């Protein structure tokens, strides 16, 4: 279902067809073009007062051509409004980091990198956060099995045959 509001109108005026505003179950989100990414986030924060970045995460769709959905969940204290910004990127494609816009994106992007292998350009220190450094594979991808592990890492670092 399409989402219409003054905010959407302003953004569409600025970015044209790259922004597709939708609403589902009363929650608004925007499907934006990958090329708009740092700019639209910057404008959402600076001009539309979405000063609180709730979450940065990703979803993996292995069957799609552009495999990953990257999401920013934003909140505006002034308007008491939430909005999700979504974009699609392909495997191996980089995406600009939002750390300079919201410092909170730092760890959240690191987690997305850790779990999905999404590369954020301009991130001050993009390394694994929950999994140990040197781990191979990104567990939240759909092709990573639930009992899969980096057995090489386990054998070297823990000195045991298997973690299971």
């Amino acid at each position, binding site marked *: 279902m399409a989402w219409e509001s003054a905010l959407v109108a302003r953004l569409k005026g600025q970015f044209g067809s790259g922004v597709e505003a939708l609403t589902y179950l009363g929650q608004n989100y925007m499907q934006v073009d990958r090329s708009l990414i740092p700019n639209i986030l910057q404008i959402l924060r600076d001009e539309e007062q979405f000063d609180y970045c709730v979450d940065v995460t990703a979803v993996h769709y292995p069957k799609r051509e552009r495999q990953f959905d990257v999401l920013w969940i934003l909140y505006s204290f002034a308007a*008491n409004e939430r909005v999700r910004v979504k974009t699609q990127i392909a495997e191996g494609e980089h995406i600009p980091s939002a750390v300079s816009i919201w410092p909170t994106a730092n760890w959240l992007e690191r987690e997305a990198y850790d779990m999905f292998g999404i590369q954020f350009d301009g991130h001050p*220190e993009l390394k694994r956060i929950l999994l140990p450094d040197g781990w191979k594979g990104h567990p939240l991808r759909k092709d990573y099995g639930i009992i899969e592990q980096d057995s090489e890492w386990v054998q070297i670092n823990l000195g045991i045959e298997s973690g299971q």
Partner: protein
Amino acid sequence: MTDSTSSVSHLDLDESKKTFLDANELILNMGPQHPATHGVLRVILRLDGEKVLGLECVIGYLHRGVEKIAEHRTYTMFNPYVDRMDYVAAVSNGLGYCEAVEKLLNIEAPPRADYIRVILTELNRLASHQLWLGTHALDIGAMTPLFYTFRDREEILKIFERYCGARLTTHAFRIGGCQYETYEGFEKDVKKFVAFVAPKIDEYEELLTTNRIWVERTKNVGTISAKDCIAYGVTGPVLRASGVKWDIRKAQPYAAYGKFDFEVPTGQNGDTYDRYLVRMAEMRQSLRIIQQAIDGIPEGPIMAKVSKVMKPPVGEIYHSIEAPKGELGYFIVSDGSTQPYRVRVRPPSFVNLQALDLMCRGQLVADVIAVIGTLDIVLGEVDR
């Protein structure tokens, strides 16, 4: 302590630059086995004497892959797993998840179930704050409040136990409402508890609020401004102590919270002492909510009509609640099958912990302990 250098790259630690008499900088590894890190948090501190020049958190020791597990369980089966994240506020976790799935299914829990949910969630908030107070005070060296708070938290756990059989990881709610009707004497128990615990909160305050050492240890320690809080996405009592009057229970009411009259306590300075005061006030507000809810609890069904096999339509939803630690959000993607396609948990502890570096710079080692305590993190939720 020797292996700490591997992950302190950004602390510009260069051994070769050190001269014979350069005793200024010291790398101190705190944790993962350390009494004051509330679990298995590892903090690498760069110190000048006792002054903190910078720190880095190393987390993930408790990572269990909750989000991955969710993708291989049905919606109902995943419900108990969320209790294991923030295990001291398991009821809040369950509430957030159940409401998110209900939204996705486009159903609503009946009013009586909403009231029971509010009562249990607020009791849980109280228990979480009590646990926080006890451990935080212990970190700062006051040993006694720990035992006082545990005595009173026990009463809450007893109510949980009678209600659903479990004390900690309660799994109290089901998608669509509550599994259990309140037990006989539930109302009496809760009313008795409210009357019992109100003077106890005064007792905690008597021990600490005006204690000079406590005030000196917490005032102007770990100060964070409202602007920084928002920039770093810090939520919950930490945000409110910085002066932002924002509580999801008020801003975007869920369950039955819209029906109750309560205040959102705020602080001004955003220091450890204000966070302490805000949480103490929150405990009193929780009691107010519980009192109103138990007085006005309606009769009726406790379960909405939900089919045994849940197949939410294709789509995605983000739902967040005010957990004791801050904004706890669930982002669920459904592909129309019985299993969620993706469940993303937005953990308040994880995001709040990120501000530790900012809050500790220029403070002393002892303050790091105080700040870790005041952030009220639960490592089970940070690492998931």
